[in-house]
């Protein structure tokens, strides 16, 4: 299994994580990517904010 994810894979996993539980190994790889990538951490926060904002609509 490839250990490092790229940002494109991570953006897809961020979305998937909003809809279903993620297997532990995949979640660990995602969290590792967040450690090394500020941009994807930002996108993760923005996706969560987006969910909150839509619920307020």
């Amino acid at each position, binding site marked *: 299994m490839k250990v490092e994810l*790229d*940002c*494109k*894979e991570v*953006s*897809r996993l961020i*979305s*998937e994580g*909003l*809809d*279903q539980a993620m297997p532990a190994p995949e979640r660990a790889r995602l969290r590792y990517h967040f450690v090394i990538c500020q*941009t994807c951490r*930002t*996108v993760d*926060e*923005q*996706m969560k*904010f*987006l*969910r*909150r*904002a*839509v*619920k*307020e*609509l």
Partner: protein
Amino acid sequence: MSIEAELAQLHQPLLRFAMMQLRNESIAEDVVSETFLAILEKPESFEGRSSLRTYATGILKFKIIDVIRKRGREVHIEPLDEQSMDDAMDALFAKDGHWQDPPPVWQHPEKSLEQRQFFEVLQTCVDRLPAKVGRVFMMREWLDKEVDEICAELGITSSNCGVMLYRARMRLRDCLDRNWFAGQR
């Protein structure tokens, strides 16, 4: 303000949401009318429990779900054009899978939730989503339905549903970034 006058003010926003979900003007009008009738038949059920808007929205959601359930497989969503979707997504990333233009940080996004204009921009962004994508997204995020339920009700696969949700979120993130947060940087 009388309850009738308050409901009159709610007509447009509720109709717009019903239209997005049902894609049929006369059916959307029907569910909004039924919602208003349900409230007017038993106004004592509402009084003091919540705002009229919240109460009406809750009833409307159930009525929309009922319609979607009754239509069942009649509601047909065409498969995504995988190629054009992939092209749009690929444009966001370089060949190595990293961001082409890294998305900038949003400053204090929670403060936006206190501004009416923010919600007007967000609504416009949602309205701009392709019809089938917007519908799946709002069923998930606004009607709080699980992916399995959406798949069953719309007759699509879970992977197709996941792709549509991903696409909707990426588009909305980009739309809000360009049309709201960029102006605050």
